[in-house]
């Protein structure tokens, strides 16, 4: 039986008449809706950020792979339920599909964590070994690895919401508005969450004191 889509769309139009289609993924989403095989383009674009998010949340390579697979399979199966809600204020780069996909990932990860009952901080240290090593700079490589490890440990010690917000902001490079959409909170709440998380990390890493020491290496680009 057909759903009453006409009534629903009419109500949405009267509520937000200035809605604009600013989703940068819109052509890909439309193509995937017409032909599910075209979903691959969206998959290729977001598989690494989703995997990264899952890895930071779960702290385990296999669990992150499972969560990534479930996220994309669920996204493909439920693509018809996705509604674009980008507003003009969101800017030209707004991507509500990205927010929707990360919401799916967040739900999948929460379910995965309930099942596995793992704590990320216990396993996060292993991941620093995966940082690409520079064979010509052994000393700098060790320093980089040590700093990454301490930064990761500081993030891993944060409460769940603060850690999640920091990872989405610094690793997946989502805007505050996008993080608010993913976490189901207001932008103001996310701003305060990020600010408090950064203050906790600063205390944990003791960065003001560390900043007074001469840096071991100025250029840390790889």
């Amino acid at each position, binding site marked *: 039986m057909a759903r009453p889509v006409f009534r629903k769309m009419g109500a949405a139009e009267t509520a937000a008449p200035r809605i604009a289609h600013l989703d940068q993924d819109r052509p890909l989403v439309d193509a995937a809706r017409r032909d*599910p095989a075209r979903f691959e383009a969206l998959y290729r674009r977001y598989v690494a950020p989703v995997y990264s998010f899952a890895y930071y949340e779960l702290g385990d390579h296999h669990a992150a792979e499972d969560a990534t697979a479930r996220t994309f399979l669920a996204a493909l199966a439920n693509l018809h339920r996705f509604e674009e809600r980008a507003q003009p204020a969101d800017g030209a780069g707004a991507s509500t599909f990205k927010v929707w996909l990360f919401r799916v990932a967040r739900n999948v990860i929460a379910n995965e964590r309930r099942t596995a009952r793992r704590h990320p901080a216990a396993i996060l240290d292993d*991941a620093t070994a995966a940082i690409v090593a520079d064979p010509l700079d052994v000393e700098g490589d060790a320093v980089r690895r040590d700093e990454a490890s301490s930064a990761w440990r500081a993030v891993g010690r944060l409460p769940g919401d603060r850690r999640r917000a920091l990872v989405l902001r610094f690793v997946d490079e989502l805007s505050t508005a996008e993080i608010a959409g993913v976490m189901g909170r207001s932008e103001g709440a996310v701003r305060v969450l990020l600010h408090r998380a950064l203050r906790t990390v*600063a205390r944990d890493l003791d*960065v003001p004191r560390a900043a007074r020491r001469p840096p071991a290496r100025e250029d840390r680009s790889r």
Partner: protein
Amino acid sequence: MTLLGRDVVEVDALVTDRYLDSLLVARELEAASPRATAGPALRTPPAGRPRELSGTRLDRGVRLASERLTRDLPRFHPSFRFEERLAVRLAEAAAAMRLPVAAGGEGSVRLVPFPAPELPAGFDPLAAEPDEGDAATFSRPLLLGGAVAASALSIAGAAWVAWRRSRANSSPMARAARAAHAMRGRPA
């Protein structure tokens, strides 16, 4: 409460958020210009982006922690093998969805096997017709008995109607009418 009527923490959070935005923009600019080095680019927000709101200062610890996390938190990529395997799974799922989508349906469709009737083992519906001797096993006694009884009742009914039509009416009124009709042609 501050001049803006907000809590101090909210104003500080707003300043931090603007600074984080500038960090992200700096990273994008750095990615766009490969000659720029990571360190100075991350430490210097691009021109035109306010680093601090008027009357407020960004907390030094927050600024340094932000730079540290921007620089040190690694991004991970799944293995090539996993990525390709999942791509194949998605392609298979997409192929299964393609037919319902083409038909204008909504939602996911699960393929359910058609329920097979309970047949004896080895039964082949496309095999040759059964032999004559096998037909005797398909007897229908109730149906045949019903047809015989219905035919007998029909014949008996037809016979009774014929008998009733051939038999003369013996009522007193009928006898009087017949007598009057017979006397009509006689001389008085």
